[in-house]
């Protein structure tokens, strides 16, 4: 059993304690101002760098993975999305991939049942992934309320929907619970399924624990410890308006743990697999139309190669060709 997740768990706990201790001993400015700014800076520079680095490399060949019927004879029905030939088709394919995780939706699981091998359609991974990503998205949008004043209507509207269960006071946000749930399920998958456990490494566990840490501290602050939200907003508005400051009489140290985790996550993105959020847009097997035979794709570095010409070939075989009555260029 691969227990490398314990190291990641330990790392996240230690990092959390550092932030907590820091806030307690009066380093609020470090954890509340300096590190968040640094993190955002690292994120932007790193992210832009990475994307530019990708974009710099050419796409020499159109290597679409086709997942449906090609467009050929007009009486054969093509799959315009899974095997697109037009830009519109490609855009829809990409939207389905990015918004609905189309390919994960195909997932199957191999099983040896007696003499028969079966490939069962399984949706768990897709479901956990959807749950996790959309929850995260909603949580991020909701948190914009800490960075703008007045709070735009769409955030309030989102909060109303998110809190529609009306459980507890303050009302439970579904997204917070599903974010924690989704991340935990993805984590359990990595710990408990032997194959997934075997391929999982520290770089897989670390961001999951970090996100679980973020969700847990957030939930604790909102429902249990009940930090002073007005003070928190004072701090975050300070950051957003570039007039940073630490509120008088302090915010709970837990808040700094939360903010530190978020800072770490944000700064970690450009250097990790979390860049899949950008990479998915640029994957050449998905974002190119399968119109190769209709429209020539240009390779900017198309090399000159030494080929064996017909003339050289005929030199080698002329006599044999003549004997066999195969026409030749030079008698």
């Amino acid at each position: 059993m691969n227990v490398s997740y314990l190291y990641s768990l330990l790392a996240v706990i230690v990092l959390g304690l550092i932030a907590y201790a820091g806030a307690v001993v009066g380093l609020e400015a470090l954890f509340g101002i300096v590190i968040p700014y640094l993190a955002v800076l690292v994120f932007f520079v790193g992210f832009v760098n990475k994307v530019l680095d990708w974009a710099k490399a050419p796409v020499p060949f159109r290597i679409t993975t086709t997942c449906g019927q090609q467009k050929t004879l007009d009486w054969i029905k093509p799959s315009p999305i899974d095997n697109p030939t037009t830009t519109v088709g490609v855009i829809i394919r990409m939207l389905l991939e990015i918004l609905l995780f189309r390919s994960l939706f195909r997932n199957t699981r191999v099983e040896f049942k007696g003499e028969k091998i079966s490939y069962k359609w399984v949706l768990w991974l897709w479901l956990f992934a959807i749950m996790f990503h959309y929850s995260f998205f909603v949580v991020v949008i909701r948190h914009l309320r800490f960075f703008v004043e007045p709070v735009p209507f769409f955030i309030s509207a989102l909060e109303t929907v998110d809190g529609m269960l009306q459980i507890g006071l303050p009302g439970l946000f579904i997204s917070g619970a599903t974010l924690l749930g989704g991340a935990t399920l993805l984590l359990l998958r990595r710990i408990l399924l032997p194959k997934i456990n075997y391929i999982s490494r520290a770089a897989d566990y670390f961001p999951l624990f970090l996100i679980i840490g973020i969700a847990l501290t957030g939930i604790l602050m909102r429902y249990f410890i009940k930090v002073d939200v007005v003070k928190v907003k004072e701090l975050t508005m300070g950051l957003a308006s570039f007039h940073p400051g630490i509120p008088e009489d302090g915010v709970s140290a837990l808040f700094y743990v939360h903010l530190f985790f978020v800072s770490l996550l944000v700064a970690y993105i450009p250097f990790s697999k979390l860049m899949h959020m950008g990479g998915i847009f640029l994957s050449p097997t998905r974002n190119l139309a399968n119109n190769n035979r209709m429209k020539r794709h240009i390779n900017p570095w198309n090399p000159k190669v030494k080929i064996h010409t017909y003339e050289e070939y005929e030199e080698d075989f002329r006599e044999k060709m003549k004997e066999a009555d195969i026409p030749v260029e030079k008698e």
Partner: protein
Amino acid sequence: MEELPKPDEMYESIDHTPPEEEWEKIESPIKRGRYAYPAKDKNLAIMEFPTPGEWSPADEEWPLPDNWQQIIHEGFKERLEKYRSLKIFMDTCVRCGACADKCHYFIGTGDPKNMPVVRAELLRSIYRNDFTTAGKILGKIAGGRKLTKEVIKEWFAYFYQCSECRRCSVFCPYGIDTAEVTMMGRELLNLLGLNINWIMEPVANCFRTGNHLGIQPHAFKEMVEFFCDDIEEITGLKLNPSFNRKGAEILFITPSGDYFADPGTYTFMGYLMLFEALGLDYTLSTYASEGGNFGLFTSSDAMKKLNSKMYAEAKRLGVKWILGGECGHMWRVINQYMDTMNGPADFLEVPKSPITGTVFDNAKSTKMVHITEFTADLIRHNKLKLDPSRNDKFKVTYHDSCNPARAMGLLEEPRYVIKNVCNYFYEMPENTIREKTFCCGSGSGLNTEEVMDLRLRGGLPRANAVKHVHDKYGVNMLACICAIDRAAFPPLMEYWVPEVGTTGIHELVANALIMDGEKERTTDLRFESLKEEEDEADEG
């Protein structure tokens, strides 16, 4: 070659439980039956690759040049700069595991390094260590790994246990294509002269003689004439195909496997009979006598060199367009590389069927049409007289070849043709066909005897699906549109489902095809009785 276990023993022995040890720590990846013999210097030299001399993968010390690490590092860097695909595929994997059980080699071997995710990690770990900030600082914690000789051995072992079939890329949420990773890995190994002879000899042959098997022009002609004799015996018609004929309307190119060995030869006879029945103005070429392209399994330069002959010969002969035979990876090259590499083919015309008048707009740039597109169009327009009952002894299923399925989307055309020339057609289970089709287990240059263990294991998912329709519907014939399939399936079926034969689609077409002036047929193209019962009655 070592004795193979009995099929049920092999089947029972497959264990997907991951080992205790992390894959990074498992050494000695070179196992008998799983590696092919290394490329010979004479073949490497023809293609201007480094020549390491005599060696065996089983050797402790491999013949690496002194600066091998530098060569790999610079080669890797160059490819990262040339291929966005490589960068994206190195950076975006989240190891979600969706691909893990999609690979036929993993399903058949249970070896965790055959999970597509781990296969790619073999390269990714070096990428992280050498080219990423996190890897340079954090090393192993960030998933980095030092480039050692052991890593080179591992690459050789596992990039030659991938058939570049792209099944995993269908399931990957980021479209990561292990074929692309394997191709890059193989290119890097080529920089050190490490290749397998089963690939490099065909490549060298094709470069010099025009086809993988090194068949010289006069011999090619003799083989085709031999088929014509057989056709005359079966149909009473004398065929006279032309070679290297200038001014023909169409140049026809098919893989050399189709004229070299059974059952591909019957498919070749099928093409000849179809063209005769149509009175098609076509020619064969001895210079471009290979549809396949083992360069695809070597390097993009090698692929380009071999592929260049198709357009060069079409231009020299002055044909209007090119028709291509049944082959899998050939069509990946034609559909996704040819025009880019060796185009534009502005000396050719947009393909138009001289029989039906159909213009193949889908091929208006490459000017090359797949034979099942061509034949499906003929059937649709009622241009063929067909008697499908001549195929009645065959209960047919259809194997989608990897490349036409996942690098093209040629799914319905072959099915349409089969359904019109056969009365009994049955599909294999849904998750094993079309874009989810399984490799024959021998693709990308791995169809050599010494890796039979790997081939039988890798072919198991396909064979098992065939067995399913064999048991359920009595299927006894596996149709395909790939020359490697036609070479790989006979031993695969013999091992797992011995009652099932292998055929190309145009063999079935020619069996059913009623040609003007033909005599009454008593046998199929294999000189076997048209009706199974008669054989049994004779024996009885």
